[in-house]
């Protein structure tokens, strides 16, 4: 038996989380370094996975399979396709930056108590989330996936509810109340989605007799497993609801602005760039593969909802007064694009959606982390409290601008490639939807530039006059992300090469082919 | 006479015991009522044993007695220590479960 690479990739951060949590209270800094090293180690393992993965090989590679709960046919079954491997790489890549960006976020106010260890907890929770997200990407057993899909709510709940910005415009007490509200809201929304999914998972077991993704898909393909139309639709809706909450799709989105607004910037990145990706990823892997006919049946409604998400999220982003909530609504808009791409059922749309997940992760991380640095300096999240930062902290402003430009999908930066692919993919099948979605890019420019103008330009406000520019640690966080944004914008081929075969297979699962062009162009 | 009558008697005793548990407040009396219920069950088991012609029912009744003995020992100990700390054996005084 070969080395269980996938298990190792997920187990390392899990063990790291335990080890970090166990660091004594006084060794706060050691805990941070330990967490950083573990996340870097995970990154190395993810890189090895990426290298070992052969884009043109089998659909699922590096598979591991062990019996787990024999009575119910639950197996510990792992395997990655191109989409999963790209997202694992993204997750492993972002966590070190999240840890580095949140280096001082969980420093305790007073250091007297010997049992009070928030720092250790913070970093341990981040690593725990990483482990669970990675195993969710790897699981090819529906039940195994479900367990970790739900379990990651627990550490996220504590991360949102337990750690907030140092300063808050209404004082500590209000901040704590709002944090609790946000955390509970996050938990409840996702739990409701998860419970409905649990019902669907059980339903799937009743119908199919096991939980193995590959076996069910194969059985459906060769006709040995027949599903009644209505059964398939109900099961699809059960799965989709949970993923739509997590993604989040309008009108199930309202937990995201609260959660991202109240959490610290690194945690907000964790939510939107890492955890939420599991939702869209699962749509591609589970909804489309397990229930191809129902997916096609639901497509019109989902496209409309995605479209509403795009426009609605962008319009609301324009109307926000709070930097982090603005980014949250922008993310809702972007998730609309991802879901649009997935359900456009074209290879451009789905490759674009996958690429979008990666790129959105990186670009939002860049923007949100810089916003976090900004907020930590001034101690306010309100846009109106800033102005003229460009003058006093040009590097901070510059990186913020690049993050913003990535958010508005400027060509040359990575998100453009994915957004354009999604739009083209949608347009070839649903022209009207494609055109309306294009409006989103105008609105994206509006909210990004308004944000930049109000915070960074204009006369220097007295409160920001003494603001220091980015420090070395902060630059270390932002610079690689920006470099990656530019690299993937100019040369996305490495990613598309990995993703394309997997998308082709998904397309054939749902029995869809790209529409042919009207005329065959002369080459 | 039909031996089923023993079952009716058991049911009656059980019901009386249960009602007693609900009505009385003195913990000791409540406990006695519980014993009454257990005994009613035992009677039913013995009657069943006779009906089915095997001894399993008696075995169960036997175990019930043993467990009841153990239960009485612990239960009375609890009552005594409760009385010590509260100077009362009323079950209504132990209402900390209230929100």
């Amino acid at each position, binding site marked *: 038996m070969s080395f269980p690479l996938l298990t190792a990739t997920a187990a390392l951060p899990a063990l790291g989380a335990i080890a970090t949590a166990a660091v004594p209270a006084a060794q706060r800094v050691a805990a941070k370094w330990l967490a950083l090293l573990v996340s870097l180690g995970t990154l190395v393992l993810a890189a090895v996975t990426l290298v070992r993965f052969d884009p043109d090989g089998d659909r699922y590679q590096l598979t591991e399979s062990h019996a787990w709960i024999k009575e119910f046919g639950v197996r510990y079954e792992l395997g990655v396709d191109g989409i999963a491997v790209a997202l694992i790489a993204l997750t492993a890549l972002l966590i070190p930056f999240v840890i580095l960006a949140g280096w001082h976020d969980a420093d305790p106010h007073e250091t007297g108590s010997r049992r009070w260890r928030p720092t250790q907890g913070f970093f341990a929770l981040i690593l725990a989330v990483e482990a669970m997200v990675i195993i969710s990407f790897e699981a090819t057993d529906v039940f195994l996936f479900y367990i970790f899909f739900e379990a990651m709510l627990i550490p996220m709940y504590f991360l949102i509810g337990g750690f907030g910005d140092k300063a808050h415009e209404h004082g500590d007490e209000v901040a704590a109340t709002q944090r609790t509200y946000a955390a509970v809201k996050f938990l409840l929304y996702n739990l409701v989605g998860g419970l409905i999914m649990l019902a669907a998972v059980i339903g799937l077991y009743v119908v199919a007799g096991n939980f193995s993704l590959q076996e069910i898909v194969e059985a459906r393909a060769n006709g040995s497993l027949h599903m009644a139309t209505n059964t398939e639709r109900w099961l699809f809706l059960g799965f989709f609801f949970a993923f739509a909450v997590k993604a989040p799709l309008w009108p199930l989105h309202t937990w995201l602005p609260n959660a991202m607004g109240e959490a610290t910037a690194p945690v907000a990145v964790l939510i939107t760039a890492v955890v939420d990706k599991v939702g869209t990823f699962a749509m591609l892997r589970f909804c489309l593969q397990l229930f191809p006919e129902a997916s096609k049946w639901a497509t019109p409604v989902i496209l409309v909802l995605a479209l509403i998400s795009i426009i609605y999220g962008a319009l609301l982003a324009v109307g926000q007064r709070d930097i982090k909530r603005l980014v949250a609504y922008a993310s809702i808009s972007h998730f609309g694009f991802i879901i649009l791409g997935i359900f456009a059922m074209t290879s451009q749309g789905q490759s674009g959606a996958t690429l979008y997940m990666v790129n959105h992760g990186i670009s939002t991380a860049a923007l949100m982390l810089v916003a976090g640095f900004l907020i930590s300096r001034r101690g306010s999240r309100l846009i109106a409290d800033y102005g003229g930062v460009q003058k006093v902290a040009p590097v901070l402003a510059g990186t913020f601008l690049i993050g913003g430009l990535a958010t508005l999908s400027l060509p040359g930066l990575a998100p453009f490639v994915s957004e354009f692919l999604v739009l083209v993919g949608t347009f070839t099948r649903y022209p009207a939807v494609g055109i309306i979605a294009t409006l989103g890019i105008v609105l994206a420019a509006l909210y990004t530039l308004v944000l930049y103008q109000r915070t960074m330009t204009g006369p220097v406000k007295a409160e920001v006059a003494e603001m220091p520019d980015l420090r070395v640690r902060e630059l270390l966080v932002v610079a690689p992300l920006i470099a990656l944004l530019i690299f993937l914008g100019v040369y996305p081929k490495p990613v598309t090469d990995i993703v394309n075969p997997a998308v082709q297979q998904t397309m054939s699962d749902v029995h869809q082919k790209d529409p042919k062009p009207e005329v065959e162009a002369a080459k | *006479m039909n031996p089923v009558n023993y079952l*009716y008697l058991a*049911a009656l005793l059980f019901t009386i015991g249960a009602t007693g548990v609900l009505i009385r407040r003195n913990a000791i009396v409540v406990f006695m009522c519980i014993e009454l219920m257990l005994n009613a069950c035992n009677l039913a088991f*013995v009657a069943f044993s006779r009906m089915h012609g*095997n001894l399993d029912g008696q075995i169960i009744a036997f175990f019930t007695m043993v467990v009841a003995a153990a239960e009485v020992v612990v239960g*009375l100990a609890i009552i005594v220590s409760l009385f010590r700390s509260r100077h009362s054996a009323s079950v209504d005084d132990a209402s900390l479960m209230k929100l």
Partner: protein
Amino acid sequence: MSAQLAAYSTSTGEAFQFWVLGTVAVVGALCTVFMKKAVHSALCLAGTMIVLAVFYLANGAYFLGIVQIVVYTGAIMMLFLFVVMLVGVTAADSLKETIKGQRWLALVCGLGFGILLIAGIGNASIKDFNGLAKANANGNVEGLAALIFTKYVFAFEITGALLITAAVGAMVLTHRERTERAKTQRELSEQRVREGKHVPPLPAPGVYARHNAVDIAGLLPDGTPSELTVSKTLRERGQIRDVSTEALSDLKALEQRAEERLERTNSGEGSK
């Protein structure tokens, strides 16, 4: 009564026994529930249990019948009585309900439950009545032993463990750990002096020449009882017998008798 008869039918004797003793059992159960004093309840319960023991015997469960008398009535019920003694025999419960609607709910539920249970039994099709002749062929105790030590041996062993645990548990629960050293007599007296209360020994109970029991409070010069004279335990149980009025009424009776005699004299004088 032969085992044969007990198995297949019920003799008239058994029927008679059932109806008489069954009535006793039910009355005993009702008394258990409705008696004001815990001691009375316990005694009624013991009666019911003895009746049940007889029924066990009648049903061919000879071993259980004996065990019921020895263990239940003999040991467990005595344990109850001990506890009642510890907690207070005279502390009569008021049967007044404190939880709103509890009694009615309990009665309705009990009535409903009983009716349903009895209806259920009535509904059940219990046709064949095998009797225990075969099972008890080698003797009831042997039959039980064979089962306990083969089929139910694990349950039996575990029950043993349970009993030990219960015994230990009871000890743990009732045993009070001393958290501080007990004060010596010297320390106690020093404390009394320091506090300035009751420096001399407490007064003794009893009224000399009339009552010398420990539960009778001594009388103060004005004839009122002094609680200080009886032990704390009795005081808390409310088991003090007050004889202050008794002395007065005795006196009154004496005076009356004396007067009666004097009246005669007086009336004699009056008639004179």
